[in-house]
């Protein structure tokens, strides 16, 4: 399938790249524009005498360019795909020239090698050494968590009403202490809880909710030996214990399916770090999966996903109950196709699914929800998503510019909407016409900060 303008722009590492790419759309800038079944390529006249050689492997899409930019994909790659989206006729069908063919071949080779490596039995890790490392880490966490338990009890003895900005330092110190104790997940939860203090009406209730759920993790740490392996895996994830990728690929639960890309978003964690969520749903398994990736310094992501498209893949799920986080184990190099419209439960079914998800693992911070008939609305100063014919609505977390777009697509009529639910706010990522084709009418664009 060829990507739409919006889908290409969604791949841009930042707004500056998108803007620069739009400035390169004159066909006169491109002495060569050609395509084969697997790739498109072109030569773009830059400021130097030699044009930049830009190519895109459509199976990804994966970009490559001879320009010196550190952005990925660079403006030339984006412009090439924009041209492809906007004026397909400018491209001539051709056999790839050597500079394209060599790259495609090396990519295939690498993929095969990777597969071969994956097929080989991994070098048997030393179980005794691993167990020792684990025990050491648990010991550190245990010590940190005991301190946290006392500190939490202190806070509740004195009462939340006594909290104010003057305690910020103490909370930051406790968050840092948790990172030292090798439980960064707890540190992050404390930092997030500290941000709630004094923020908006009803903050004590939101804070109590956070601290209460934090206490459940604290309790679980001391009871870890009595927990089932799956619950212990959930606990480790909540503590921020990193998952060893090799081990996961070796032992994780594999699901082979055609995966519909429900939606995706980029969150700017700080100036250099971008976190990407890609949500998938298996056509056969019905399983929903989260691919969580990070990119440093505008380098972009290895694999691009197109919301609303579908592609075959084998995913490997993290251990735990109702696990949704996964990594891609195998991704056959075939182009993505436009998917059938996402199947959606009725409203009650979707709530039921969410409740089961929470019952299985109360520590998952984000839950994916698909609403079949949802109407975006503005009420007061807040954006809402009305659900079905009932008068119920979810508060929406969405930048104003994006919300107006979504509203324009709805026109007051229902849409099929996918988004993330954090227990308080719904953050929409993708919307389809209620009875339409698989191409979304709206996708969240740009990075959230």
């Amino acid at each position, binding site marked *: 399938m060829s990507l739409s303008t919006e889908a290409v722009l969604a791949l841009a590492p930042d707004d500056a790249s998108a803007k620069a790419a*739009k400035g390169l759309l004159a066909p006169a800038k491109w002495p060569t524009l050609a395509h084969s079944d697997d790739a498109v390529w072109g030569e773009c006249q830059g400021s130097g005498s030699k044009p930049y050689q830009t190519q895109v492997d459509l199976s990804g899409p994966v970009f490559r360019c001879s320009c010196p930019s550190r952005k990925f994909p660079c403006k030339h790659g984006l412009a090439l795909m924009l041209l492809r989206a906007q004026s397909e006729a400018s491209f001539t069908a051709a056999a790839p020239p050597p500079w394209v063919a060599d790259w495609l071949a090396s990519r295939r080779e690498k993929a095969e090698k990777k597969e071969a490596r994956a097929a080989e039995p991994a070098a048997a890790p030393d179980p005794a050494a691993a167990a020792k490392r684990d025990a050491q880490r648990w010991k550190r966490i245990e010590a940190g968590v005991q301190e946290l338990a006392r500190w939490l009890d202190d806070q509740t003895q004195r*009462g*939340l009403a006594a909290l104010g900005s003057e305690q910020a330092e103490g909370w930051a110190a406790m968050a840092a202490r948790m990172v030292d104790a090798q439980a960064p997940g707890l540190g992050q939860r404390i930092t997030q809880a500290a941000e709630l203090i004094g923020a908006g009406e009803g903050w*004590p209730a939101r804070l109590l909710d956070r601290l*209460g759920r934090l206490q*459940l993790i604290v309790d679980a740490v001391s009871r870890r030996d009595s927990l089932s392996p799956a619950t212990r895996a959930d606990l480790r994830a909540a503590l921020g214990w990193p998952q060893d990728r090799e081990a996961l690929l070796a032992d994780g639960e594999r699901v082979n399916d055609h995966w519909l890309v429900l939606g995706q978003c980029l969150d700017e964690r700080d100036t250099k770090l971008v976190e990407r969520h890609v949500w998938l749903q298996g056509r056969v398994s019905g399983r929903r999966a989260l691919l969580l990736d990070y990119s440093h310094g505008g380098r972009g992501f290895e694999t691009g996903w197109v919301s609303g498209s579908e592609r075959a893949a084998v995913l490997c799920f993290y251990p735990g109950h109702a696990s949704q986080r996964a990594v891609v184990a195998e991704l056959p190099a075939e182009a993505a196709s436009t998917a059938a419209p996402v199947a959606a439960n009725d409203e009650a079914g979707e709530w039921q699914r969410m409740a089961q998800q929470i019952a299985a693992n109360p520590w998952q911070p984000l839950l994916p929800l698909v609403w079949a008939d949802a109407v975006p609305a503005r009420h007061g100063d807040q954006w809402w998503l009305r659900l079905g014919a009932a*008068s119920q609505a979810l508060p929406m977390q969405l930048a104003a510019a994006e919300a107006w777009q979504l509203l324009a*697509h709805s026109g007051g009529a229902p849409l099929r909407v996918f988004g993330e639910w954090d227990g308080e706010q719904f953050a929409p990522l993708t919307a389809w016409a209620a009875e339409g084709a698989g191409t979304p009418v709206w996708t969240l664009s740009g990075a959230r900060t």
Partner: protein
Amino acid sequence: MSHWNTLLQTALVGTARQPVPAADGMAGDFGALLQALQQPTDTAQGVLLRVAGAVAVGRRAGFVAPGLPADDAPPAANDTSPALGDPALLAVIADALAAGPQRLQHEVLAVLATAGWRLPPSLLPAALDAGRRDTALRPAVVLALGERGRWLAARNDDWRYAVGASAQADTQTRWDEGSIDQRRAVLAEQRRDDPAGARERLAAELPQLPAKERAVLLGALAENLGPDDETLLEAQLKDRARDVRQTVVELLQRLPASAHVRRVEAFLAPLLSSQGATWQLNAPEAADPRWKDDAIDAARPTHDSLGERAWWLYQLVRQMPLAWWTARTGLTPAALLDWAAQGDWHDALLRGWNEAVLAAPDFDWCDALLDRPRAHRGGVGPLLALLPRERRERHWATQLGDAGQGVQDVVAFADQACAPGDTPSAALSLRIAQALRMRVERGDLVNDYVLRQVLGTAAALLHLDALPLLADLPRAAEESPGLANALADTARIVRARRLVATLPSSSSSSLSTSSQGRP
């Protein structure tokens, strides 16, 4: 009170002062769980948060979305015109809306609407925002919105200007419910066939309107103005709002037989006298209390460049039909301008005549004013705008010169004179484009910052036939960022206009969103 709220109360006060409440009210498995959590153990540490955590997870799993008052507004009506779906054209329009210039924005919107298309939903917020920033763009925005766009505009106070009755609604609905622009259009339309009916429609409404709308709607009487309108206009001379009085004075000026004009003449005539073949003009010696009935201010604005007597004279001149001067003196406009240039009251006369021309256009006066040395440049563009194209372009052709040395001024004036959607003729555009290209090829852009700007203005302004001359301008290997920007901007505008010009009519093509076709 729910168990959660009693827990919250304790949490706020602190467990040091208030014991953790018992979970008595809770039944079933969950109640049993909470009670088990509160069994006395060896330590009471964390009990409150433990119970709160359990309840928090339960609340999360059993979340019930809050109710929202029903929305009374119906969904958007179905659109009759198709939404444009061609990706290249949409990208060009999105770019124009985001990056301008205004003339390009107007062109893409107008071409779209004229060909029978409307904007797709994804471009509606950008178009409505562009209209919010720039009032001159609003008519073009409104035409391209479709039902969906009007529905959306009604939901944002910033986009109020675009709300109004549907463009397809009948006259009465558009008059009763329309935006101010729509109401003015209704009046202007009715004035063409039924001037009296339109006047009565306005007169009935006038007392209830705010000042700004009074001025705008009275302005619509300019269409098909006649002696019958005098009574209504004369009554508005005493309006509280200066804008309204100003509008009325300009209209009355176009009725030479009106009482207002005769009164102004009575003030002005004694000041103009002849001694043999020479005409003498004097300014009023003192303010006349009767002036205020004719919207003449005795008080000079503090910072006005005219002196007090000149200020009085200027206002009289401004309100006098220009034909009076030629009839009274027997001189041509050109001769009158020469005469004024030698007299004491030159500034007052020139300013007054200039405004009189703008209020009641007279081509001979326009030409004469434009042929004079430019006393005040700011007035040139509006004067040119009054002239029909050939008379206007005569001035530009002269100014451009054989070697195109005046090209920067011509582009600047033409930009002022051509309303959005209007362009210089193809022939003149070609001459301008040739002159510009010649200067670019000569390398003038490197040091001429004004030329860089003029280039972009010309790209958006000139006739489509001249655009090939501005496409593919020579690029150097080493360009400063400013120069590269100017050239890239020019290329962007040229490309956008040439692409938009290829837009077929909606009835003869399949470029709508439903069929994702390509040209």
